[in-house]
């Protein structure tokens, strides 16, 4: 596989503010990569650096093997879909689509034909004569994508393109973008703050925080083996439960501090007596018959969505449980809960790193 985008040792400073810290990232051709993280984590800065709208302070940025550090955006052959779509309001849909071609001096008839072809694949054929202000949000989104597709660029950059759409349309466009990516065999970098978007769309997820890549890998790898507490809490919904714990004297059990001290068994050997944080995913905690569980927990809040029941305990450190069985539960009940040893994540108390 050829590397389409390569970043090595990339740093970005805004004055004294260190926005990107030693970024190492390589993206193979045809991959769909999601940059995800809370706001201000540097994901948009990283994307804009790829586009050339921001310059990087140190390090190397290569696109299709060529060093791009000082190449202006218009010579990078990269297309971007903006959060605001940034459609040219004084041009029709067709003129929006053909803008890049006309700038390049492509003959009018040829540009028109290209626009019609792209519009046919994105369902815009009937709208070519309209102005952006006459389109709905979803249609504008499609125009923005078509404007990128028509150029056949080296890479597609998406800057939170779905955040202005309503929930139903967002789920629909998620699939549409991914389908389009596969059909074009494109290389895409997708910025989002929504971990579900990242998990469902991408082949490769990059989790960022404070300008640092916390972890990158396949979506399920991040879910199954989060490298640290931050990634563990960020990936997965509802978020992972973190409870203080201490490794037992045999090194194969955890004394977990929820309500009363309770013990869970581990499938690995740890240093006895070490203070740690246990991470338990809500969907990995299951109801069991009384007396057979590892936890006995008092029920606080019960929220039912029909497909699943979300239970929040009334313990000091709140624990969330997702239960798909329809077993009736009421506030004040004491429930018995179990977890498989392999599903217990353990993090260092100080560094937050996975143990």
């Amino acid at each position, binding site marked *: 596989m050829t590397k389409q985008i390569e970043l090595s040792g990339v740093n970005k400073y805004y004055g004294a503010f260190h926005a990107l810290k030693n970024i190492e990232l390589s993206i193979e051709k045809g991959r769909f990569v999601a940059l995800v993280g809370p706001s201000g984590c540097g994901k948009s800065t990283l994307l804009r650096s790829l586009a050339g709208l921001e310059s990087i302070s140190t390090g190397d940025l290569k696109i299709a093997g060529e060093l791009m550090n000082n190449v202006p955006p218009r010579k990078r052959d990269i297309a971007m879909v*903006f959060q605001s779509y940034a459609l040219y309001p004084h041009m029709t849909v067709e003129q929006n689509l053909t803008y890049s071609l006309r700038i390049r001096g492509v003959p009018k008839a040829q540009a028109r034909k290209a626009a019609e072809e792209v519009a046919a694949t994105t369902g815009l054929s009937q709208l070519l004569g309209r102005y952006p202000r006459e389109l709905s949000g979803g249609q504008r989104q499609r125009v923005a994508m078509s404007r990128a597709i028509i150029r056949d660029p080296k890479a597609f950059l998406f800057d939170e393109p779905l955040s202005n759409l309503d929930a139903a349309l967002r789920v629909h466009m998620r699939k549409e973008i991914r389908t389009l990516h596969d059909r074009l065999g494109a290389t895409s970098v997708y910025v989002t703050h929504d971990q579900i978007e990242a998990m469902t769309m991408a082949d490769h997820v990059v989790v960022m925080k404070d300008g640092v890549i916390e972890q990158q890998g396949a979506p399920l790898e991040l879910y199954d083996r989060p490298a640290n507490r931050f990634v563990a809490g960020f990936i997965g919904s509802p978020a992972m439960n973190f409870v203080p714990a201490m490794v037992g004297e045999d090194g194969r059990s955890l004394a977990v501090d929820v309500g009363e001290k309770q013990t869970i068994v581990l499938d690995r050997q740890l240093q006895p007596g070490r203070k740690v944080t246990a991470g338990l995913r809500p969907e990995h905690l299951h109801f069991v018959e009384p007396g057979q569980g590892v936890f006995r927990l008092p029920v606080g809040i019960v929220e039912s969505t029909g497909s699943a029941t979300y239970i929040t305990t009334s313990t000091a450190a709140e624990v969330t449980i997702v239960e798909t069985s329809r077993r009736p539960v009421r506030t004040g009940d004491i429930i018995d809960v179990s977890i498989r040893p392999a599903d217990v994540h353990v993090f260092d108390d100080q560094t937050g790193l996975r143990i």
Partner: protein
Amino acid sequence: MALRHHHFLPEGVVFRANAPGSPVRSIGGPMKRLFSSIRDGNGFDIVLVAFPLGFLFLMAGLPLLYNILMSFQEVDMFSLGTFLRPFVGFKNYQELFAQPETWPILGNTAIFVIGSIAGQFLIGFGLALFFWVNFPGASWLRGLFLVSWVMPGLVVGAIWNWILSGDFGVLNFMLKETGIISGNIFWRSDPNYSLYAVIIANVWLGTAFNMILLSVGLASIPGDLYEAAELDGANAWQRFWTITLPMMRSTIGAIVSLGLIFTLQQFDLFAAITSGGPNNSSNVTQYWAWDLSFRQYDFAKGATISVIMIVFVMFASVVYVRSTRHEVRG
């Protein structure tokens, strides 16, 4: 919005009070209904609109109509105080266009308007683009430029009199030192230059206003359009032609028509710099109208010229209103 609110809520109350069978209706007469309408309902809105409309009609509409009427009458010093004077049809117009100085003065006016607008707009747009770059201190410096616009025309005229002065003026000095001219130009008294002397001063006076309006227009173009165009491969020059100019169309239309109105109003500079001379070489319609009316006491001709000017200003106003109505915003 505040007016709407006022209108909405109490009107509901009035409606209920006036509903059939309500006791209020039988007690209150038409007067009471009128008062409550003025207090709470449509009447209040009408009163609010009536005041400015009445003011406009009294202070602008009546003089305008009187001016048009006068252009069709025979007016002399003795009939000034009366309203109904002998009607002469288009005689004033025919006489005016028979005068030898009329066409040259209309030509001067055209040169003055076109030269002033072109100079103000081009320099103003250049400055607006310059300050748009947003270097340190840009907004502060831009504010300073407004000083020229705040100054009274007569003061500007007096200052330009010194600058343009033939023997010791700084403009002649600079042109000579840079080798552009060899002998002094007598800007104000040479018939070949007198009109351009006023144009230069007027360009200086109006540039800042153009710059501010164009700066506002530039600032309202979303930045991501330029980023999108840049990624689409457009260089700075192409971005200017394909994004900036089309997005500024309504602003440019507005400023050119406002410029037409303002330059046709420009009087102070002529009074201060050339007084229309020498030999009408720098005379323009607006100054001539005043000269005819109040120095030669030929009020009918003065009014006739004003009517001709009204036609041009009306045309500019229509362009202005249309261009501000057709704003393109995504």
